[in-house]
C-alpha cells in the first residue's frame, strides 16, 4: 500500500474523531443511566459549568500552579541533572536514592510534603515539582552522559569557558533528552495538578471534579473530565510547537543520518 496522498490524509484526520463522537452521541442519546448522561446534556452543561466564573476561579489557579510547578521542576531537573550527569562520584552516590524516590507515587508523598510546606499553594506546587522533576532529572543525566566524546574534546581544544561550555555544548547537546523528559513531565504534571487538589484545596479543576463526583452532579463531572482532557491537549500542542522549534536541528540531523544510512 502506498502512502496516502495529502488530500486523503487531511480528509482522514477528523474522520475517526467524528465517528467516535457520533457513536457516543447516538449510544447515549436516550440514556436514562444516571452515570451515563446523554452527550447532548453534557455538552449543554459544559458552558454553564465552566464559563460562568469557574474558568477564572478554578481553571486559571490550577494552570498557574501547574505552570509554576512545572517550570520549577524543569529548572531543578536540568540543573541537578547536569551536575549529576557530569560527576561520576556524585552520580553513583545519589542514583539509588533518586530511583527510590522516583518510584514512590506522588499521592503518598502529599502528607509528608504537607508537613514541610503547609496546606497552601506552596504545597500544591511542591507536589507537582516532586513528581515532574524525575523524568527531567533522569533524562538530563542520560543526555549529559551521552554527550559526544569528540564534541567534548572539541570544546576543550577551543578552550570554551565553563559558561559557554554549559550553554553551547552541554545543554544544547542534551536538549533532545531534556525535551523527552520535559514531555513526560508535562503529562505527569497534569495528573499531579489533579491529585494535589484532592488535598486541602478550595479551588481548581481537580477539586471541582471531585466535588461534582461527591455531590453526584454527574453531567458536570463529565464536563470536568472533558475539561481536563482539553487542558491536556492544549498544553501538549503548545509543548510540541515549542519543542519542534527548539529541536529542529535534531530532527534534521536524524533525518539526514537515516537517509545517509
Amino acid at each position, binding site marked *: 500500500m502506498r502512502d496516502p496522498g495529502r488530500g486523503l490524509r487531511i480528509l482522514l484526520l477528523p474522520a475517526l474523531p467524528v465517528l467516535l463522537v457520533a457513536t457516543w452521541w447516538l449510544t447515549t442519546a436516550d440514556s436514562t443511566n444516571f452515570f451515563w448522561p446523554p452527550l447532548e446534556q453534557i455538552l449543554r452543561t459544559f458552558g454553564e459549568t465552566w464559563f460562568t466564573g469557574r474558568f477564572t476561579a478554578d481553571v486559571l489557579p490550577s494552570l498557574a500552579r501547574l505552570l509554576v510547578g512545572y517550570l520549577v521542576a524543569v529548572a531543578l531537573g536540568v540543573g541537578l541533572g547536569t551536575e549529576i550527569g557530569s560527576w561520576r562520584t556524585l552520580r553513583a552516590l545519589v542514583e539509588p536514592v533518586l530511583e527510590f524516590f522516583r518510584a514512590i507515587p506522588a499521592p*503518598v508523598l502529599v502528607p509528608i510534603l504537607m508537613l514541610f510546606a503547609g496546606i497552601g499553594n506552596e504545597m500544591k506546587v511542591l507536589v507537582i515539582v516532586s513528581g515532574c522533576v524525575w523524568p527531567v532529572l533522569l533524562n538530563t543525566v542520560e543526555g549529559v552522559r551521552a554527550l559526544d566524546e569528540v564534541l567534548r574534546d572539541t570544546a576543550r581544544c577551543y578552550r570554551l569557558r565553563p559558561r559557554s561550555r554549559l550553554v553551547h555544548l552541554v545543554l544544547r547537546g542534551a536538549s533532545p533528552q531534556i525535551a523527552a523528559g520535559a514531555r513526560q513531565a508535562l503529562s505527569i504534571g497534569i*495528573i499531579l495538578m489533579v491529585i494535589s487538589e484532592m488535598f486541602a484545596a478550595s479551588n481548581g479543576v481537580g477539586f471541582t471534579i471531585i466535588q461534582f463526583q461527591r455531590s453526584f452532579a454527574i453531567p458536570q463531572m463529565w464536563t470536568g473530565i472533558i475539561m481536563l482532557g482539553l487542558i491536556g491537549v492544549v498544553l501538549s500542542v503548545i509543548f510540541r510547537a515549542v519543542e519542534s522549534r527548539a529541536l529542529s536541528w535534531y530532527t534534521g540531523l536524524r533525518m539526514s543520518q537515516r537517509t545517509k544510512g
Partner: protein
Amino acid sequence: MRGRDEGRRRPLPVWLLGLIGLAGFVAILELVPRAGLVDERFLPPFSDMLSALAAQAGTAEFWQALLETLRGWAIGLSVAMAAGVVLGILIGGIPLLRAAMTSTIEFLRPIPSVALIPLAVLLFGTDMRSTLLLVVYAAFWQVLVQVLYGVRDVDPVARETARSYRFSPLTQVRTVIWPTALPYVMTGFRLGAAVALILEITGELIIGSPGLGRQIAVAQTSGAVASMYALVIVVGLVGVVVNVIARAGERRSLRWHPSIRTEVP
C-alpha cells in the same frame, strides 16, 4: 567532564558509593525527627519505620497486599504491552490507518489517567478492575507511542526489499519490522512498567482496591504513621526492583542491536 571523571585516586566502586548515599539518606531520616526538626508524631525516625516494617512483614495480610499489587501491576502491564505492540505495529505498518488514527491518538494521550478515576469507579466499583483500567490506560500510551516510533524507524530500503521479495505481511513484521522495533518496545516496556506501578498504587490508594496502596490508606486513616511510612518504603523498593529488571531487559535487547538511540519523547 572527562577531566572531572578521571579522579586522581582510584575511585570507589559504584555500588559502594550507592550504599553510602543510601546510608546518608537513612541517617537523615533518623536524625531529623530525633533532633526535633520535625515532630516525631508525623515523621517518625527511620528505626521506628523499620520496626513497623518488621511487624508488617510478619503478617500474611502484608504479603497478600504485596502480591495483589504485583499481580495488578503485572496484569495491567501485560494487557498494555499486548495492546500497545499489536496496535502499534498495525497502525504504524498501515499508512492509511496511521493517517486516520494520528489525531485520535494525539487527543486521547494527554487525558490524565486520574481523570478516569470517577469513571473507573462507576464501571467497576472498588474492585481490582477499576485500578486495572487506570494502569492499562496509562501504560498503554507509553508502549504504543514507542512502538509507533519503532515502526517508523524501519529502514525503508529493508522494507522495500521485503516487499519486492513478496514476503507475506506476517513475515514482513517478523523479519523487518519487529527486529527494528524491539529496542523501542523494550523502552516502552520500561517506561510503561514504571507508570503502571505508580498508577497501581495510586488507584489502590484513592479508589481502595486491594493492594499495598490500600494498606497505606488504612494505615493513614488509623493514624499508624510508622506503619504508613514502612509501606511507603516497600512501595519505593518495589519500584526500584521493577526499574532494575526493566532496564536489564532493555539492555539485553539492545546489546545485539547496533543502533544507538535516544529515548523518544
